């Protein structure tokens, strides 16, 4: 469960409405694959990941990035029960996808960088702090069903 004050919730809502999911999603996943190239291990079927340009323009990366960020944004609607909301996805990431939960933290931090880039000064330290809290909660929820 992530506890946000009314102010913190307002900060999240205000930015959430302005997030262009397809742009932020593609850029977030793309940057994860560029900055932490070992994360490419999960995406053998995605085709050309040979350079930053290839990665950032890869259609599969953009589509998957959008899917992931959509899911994260949906998580924002379930702050009272993140573990419940992400239970099925947690099982999937453990049992089928075999993703080390460390990667959820990496992705979360890359997303923070992308939001900072898009929102500039509007992405104040206070807004960042709220997103860090929420994304940490989501990462924990995604790791919760691991065994």
């Amino acid at each position, binding site marked *: 469960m992530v506890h946000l004050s009314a102010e913190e919730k307002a900060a999240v809502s205000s930015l959430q409405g302005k997030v262009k999911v397809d742009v932020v999603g593609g850029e977030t996943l793309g940057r994860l694959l560029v900055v932490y190239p070992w994360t490419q291990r999960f995406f053998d079927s995605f085709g050309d990941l040979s350079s*930053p340009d290839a990665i950032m323009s890869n259609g599969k990366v953009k589509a998957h990035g959008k899917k992931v960020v959509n899911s994260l944004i949906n998580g924002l609607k379930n702050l009272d029960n993140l573990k419940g909301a992400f239970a099925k996805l947690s099982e999937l990431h453990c049992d089928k996808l075999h993703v080390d939960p460390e990667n959820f933290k990496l992705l979360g931090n890359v997303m923070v960088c992308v939001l*900072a*880039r898009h929102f500039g*000064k509007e*992405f104040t330290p206070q807004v960042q*702090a709220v997103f860090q*809290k929420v994304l940490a909660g989501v990462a924990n929820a995604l790791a919760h069903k691991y065994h």
Partner: protein
Amino acid sequence: MVLSPADKTNVKSTWGKIGGHAGEYGGEALESRTFASFPTTKTYFPHFDLSHGSAQVKAHGKKVADALTNAVAHMDDLPGALSALSDLHAYKLRVDPVNFKLLSHCLLVTLACHHPAEFTPAVHASLDKFFSAVSTVLTSKYR
């Protein structure tokens, strides 16, 4: 992890564009962002006034930024350039290694906010590697 020639070029070029703002960004990354997002980092500054706008924190942010500027100028010999700071962190400050990642992340966020166009994926990667290399040197004498 080794800094490639391209990484060094990216870091030098970006740091050059920051110009005189390095101190200000150091303060923002340290005070506003690291302390706000990761409150455990404040435990290393019990002797500081940590209120918003604190002169002590601003000065410290500038100190960190100046050290990074020096590191940028000596990327071919980070252990040499950062030797004294490495001793300081190992024997006196003993900041837990996890905190270097937190500050590095907030430095990236600060740069992304202020220089969105420069902060390309390739530059993002190079900067992350650079901060990681600096952190490794600063914790190299811990044990």
